């Protein structure tokens, strides 16, 4: 697991335990939405600023996220973090929560790039192959990129699988350069 600060680890672990194996993925999505809401640089600065009291920060975060209809556990986490003036750590807490959740559920996150759109059958085949290789359940995000020319390139956790034509051309170039 990536290195996180002890504070972030404590908050992430506490949230994970309160969810008790239930709705972790939903919680993660909600946390990402909160993160996106406060992504604004000025807002981030304001929530970390000593000008606002902890109570004011708590009110502010709930007003900002009011439209998100957050899970009670997430609300509780944000409330505690605001009270302890730790909202500045939210990004790290989300990342750490994701890592804990993935490790407990044996999940491997990653993304797949392909030159053209991939259908569901192919997606399942790719996931099956990666699961077989890594012995972990892959959660993949699919995107297309014309720069690949053809084929697929995938990254899951620390694993990289590259079958794109652009990479093959690059390898060919390197081999010819070395031969010269």
């Amino acid at each position, binding site marked *: 697991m990536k290195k996180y600060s002890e504070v972030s680890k404590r908050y992430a672990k506490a949230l994970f335990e309160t969810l008790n194996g239930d709705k972790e993925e939903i919680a993660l999505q909600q946390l990402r939405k909160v993160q996106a809401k406060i992504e604004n640089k000025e807002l981030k600065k304001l929530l970390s600023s000593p000008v606002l009291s902890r109570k004011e920060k708590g009110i502010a975060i709930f007003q900002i996220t009011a439209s998100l209809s957050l899970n009670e556990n997430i609300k509780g986490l944000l409330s505690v973090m605001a009270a302890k003036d730790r909202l500045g750590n939210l990004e790290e807490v989300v990342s750490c929560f994701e890592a804990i959740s993935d490790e407990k559920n044996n999940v491997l996150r990653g993304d797949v790039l*392909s030159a053209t759109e991939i259908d569901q059958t192919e997606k399942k085949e*790719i996931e099956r192959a990666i699961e077989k290789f890594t012995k972990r359940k892959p959660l993949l995000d699919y995107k297309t990129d014309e720069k690949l020319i053809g*084929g*697929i390139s995938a990254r899951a956790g620390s694993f990289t699988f590259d079958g794109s034509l652009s990479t093959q051309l690059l390898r060919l170039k390197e081999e010819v350069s070395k031969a010269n």
Partner: protein
Amino acid sequence: MTEHEAIHIPKAVLYQAINVVILIGVLYYFTKQKIKDYFSSRATAHEKAKENAAQAYKEAETQHKDVVLKLSNLKEEEAAYVEKAQAEAKELKSKLIREADQIAHNMIQDAKKTAAFELEKAKQDLRKEALEEALLYARENIQKTIGPADQKNLERQFVDGIGAAQ
């Protein structure tokens, strides 16, 4: 004239003469030693000056002899000096020529190395450019000709590749 008349000296004159004689006697008595000392010291000084002059003369003669000797030696050594200077000049000339030869040799070697390096660099640049062109052509050609069937094939190869890598 009578004998008495001939030797008659007036008394005043006689007394004056006696006074003069006494004066001379007194003067002689009191100044004799001083005059004697004065002339004696002058004689000594003259003697010393004479000795100094003789000494200076001797020294001048010695120096004269030395100068004459040096002049004669100088003439003898002149030829040796000229010969030595010529030998040194000759040695210096050959040394300068050797150094110039070495510098010229080094310059030629450096120029050869630079030319070889530039040639190799130009070859590499050309190879690199040719390779870039070939890859660009290949990329464009693949992009033009690749179809859905090829994409499916590549996706199949990708899945099989992961399976084969286990």
